[in-house]
């Protein structure tokens, strides 16, 4: 069984083992942090409301990626969900590395390192067992195309995958546009996933504003 963090990471891996270009954007990192927070919430380590994200217990979960986020969260002051996500964002690459290592340890993917022109390194993560990735995609499609209420897990997965720009990896822009209303309805039912969406919007707005400042 793969975790929510691992499912998001799997969705970012292309058929050839390369990581989707969207995974380089802040949205992906924040979505991964959000996935960890949703899981920590389900495990009773944190809880959240409209005012703050709170640590309930510092007891490790046994999952390296989740425990990394829990430790960082416990070390910082209480913040609203969106601000906590932005504060934790710098740890996203480490959380992704830990999730990739956990997937490799279970033989779901493996690491491949290549060199171009003997100097430039390129890392790929070919998927050994594609069932988990395929299943995540199928559950997303089933929820988006049907009229059933999603499970809390799938609602968070859909909301975070959409916020992190991961749906583009297997849906066309036209399909995403057609499903926009359904996406909005079922992808935002998790309070933490909503906070992630807000954090990404704020981050993108700040980056856009900074890009428009005159260089002198």
């Amino acid at each position, binding site marked *: 069984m793969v975790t929510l963090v691992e499912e998001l990471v799997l969705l970012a891996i292309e058929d050839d083992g390369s990581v989707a270009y969207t995974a380089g954007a802040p949205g992906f990192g924040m979505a991964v942090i959000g996935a960890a927070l949703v899981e920590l919430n*389900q495990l009773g380590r944190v*809880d959240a*409301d409209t005012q703050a994200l709170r640590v309930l217990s510092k007891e490790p979960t046994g999952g390296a990626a989740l425990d990394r986020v829990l430790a960082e969260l416990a070390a910082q002051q209480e913040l609203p969900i969106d601000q906590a996500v932005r504060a934790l964002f710098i740890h996203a690459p480490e959380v992704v590395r830990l999730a990739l290592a956990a997937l490799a340890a279970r033989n779901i993917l493996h690491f491949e390192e290549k060199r171009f022109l003997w100097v430039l390194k390129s890392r790929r993560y070919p998927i050994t067992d594609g069932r988990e990735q395929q299943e995540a995609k199928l559950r997303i499609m089933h929820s988006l195309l049907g009229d*059933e*209420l*999603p499970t809390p897990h799938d609602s968070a997965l859909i909301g975070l995958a959409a916020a992190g720009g991961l749906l583009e990896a297997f849906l066309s822009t036209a399909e995403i546009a057609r499903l926009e209303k359904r996406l909005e*309805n*079922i992808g935002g039912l*998790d*309070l933490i996933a909503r906070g992630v969406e807000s954090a990404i919007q704020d981050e993108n707005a700040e980056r856009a504003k900074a890009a428009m400042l005159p260089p002198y």
Partner: protein
Amino acid sequence: MNTENVDGLTVALPAGRLDFGAAAPFQQQLEQAVAAKPRGLIVDCSSLDYVSSAGLRVFLVAARAAKAAGIGFAVSSMKPAVKEVFDLTGFGNVITLCADRAAAVAALA
């Protein structure tokens, strides 16, 4: 959590704080209510002061269970602090939310 029966509908009455600690027992009680196969299930939140992300998840689980069992489901009488959470997450787009219990009874008629 208290429950009442109104015209074949089960009305669940959570009270106080619905946080992580209260979520599991609340979910169990709602699942038991669905298993009894009433005509519909109303969660009357008039005595509920607080709902966290963990508590909110229970409403989705209960709504799914009710829908799967062919039972109507509605949430009513939310105080402003609770309604804010439902509004923020767009629950009203997928679950029937009513201002008061009478409106919920009418919605499930």
